[in-house]
């Protein structure tokens, strides 16, 4: 029974990984931005499944809550708002697509070589950390990063307001 569960776990992991990869490739080739958004949502949900299988359920929950519900709903609204059928719709790739694809492949190869060389030294952990351990570390050891995040959020809110006002000055 235990071995069966182990196998199911690995199979699910591979399945979610393949879904994520398929969604990413779909993002690269699909024409309509809405379809690209749907492919990205599929990739994000698959990544949430992978996080769940890795045992970090709180990150899986926040992946779905923040990425799929907040960020992607925002993007989908904007796509519905701006259904512009322009040159970027009829010709979806840049003229330099081939060179760019080769560059991306080289980039992937360089990253893969670096990971291959450097991750062998990592020693696997023994105990699984839960949300309790994470919460204690988050608010005691990494409190400075937590506070800097609030500064970043304030800056983002101010910037959003400034951008909106800029628009109003131009048109009125």
């Amino acid at each position: 029974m235990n071995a069966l569960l182990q196998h199911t776990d690995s199979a699910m992991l591979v399945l979610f990984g393949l879904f994520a990869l398929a969604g990413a490739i779909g993002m690269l080739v699909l024409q309509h931005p809405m379809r690209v958004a749907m492919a990205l949502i599929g990739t994000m949900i698959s990544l949430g499944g992978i996080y769940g299988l890795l045992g970090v359920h709180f990150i899986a929950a926040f992946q779905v809550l923040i990425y799929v519900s907040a960020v992607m709903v925002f993007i989908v609204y904007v796509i519905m708002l701006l259904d512009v059928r322009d040159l970027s719709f009829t010709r979806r790739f840049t003229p330099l697509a081939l060179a760019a694809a080769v560059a991306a492949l080289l980039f992937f190869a360089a990253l893969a070589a670096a990971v291959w060389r450097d991750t062998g030294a990592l020693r696997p952990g023994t105990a699984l950390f839960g949300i309790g351990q994470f919460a204690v570390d988050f608010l005691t050891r990494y409190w400075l990063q937590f506070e800097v995040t609030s500064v970043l959020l304030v800056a983002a809110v101010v910037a959003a307001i400034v951008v909106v006002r800029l628009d109003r000055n131009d048109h009125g």
Partner: protein
Amino acid sequence: MDKFSLLLVLALALFAIGFAGVIIRRNVLVMLMCMELMLNAANLSLVTLARQTDTTAGAVLVFLVFVVAAAEIAIAIPIVLLLVRRRRTLDADAYAELKG
């Protein structure tokens, strides 16, 4: 090959595909979504390494990336709306004079 290296390779592939999308696609919104994909790939590698080494630092960074992604979208979408209102197009080539 254990599952952690498999997941790391998946994260690399997602990052490279997102990178390719940013430089290949012409649509500004699609480029934005490919940037989101790159952030997601970085998150996957952070979670994988946090799980592999059993430290919480990676998980903390994932939450910071969540915040950065939300802030980035909150700024980038109004900018895209402004650009589209000015030129009525989502084509990145139409804004080529922005290159400085």
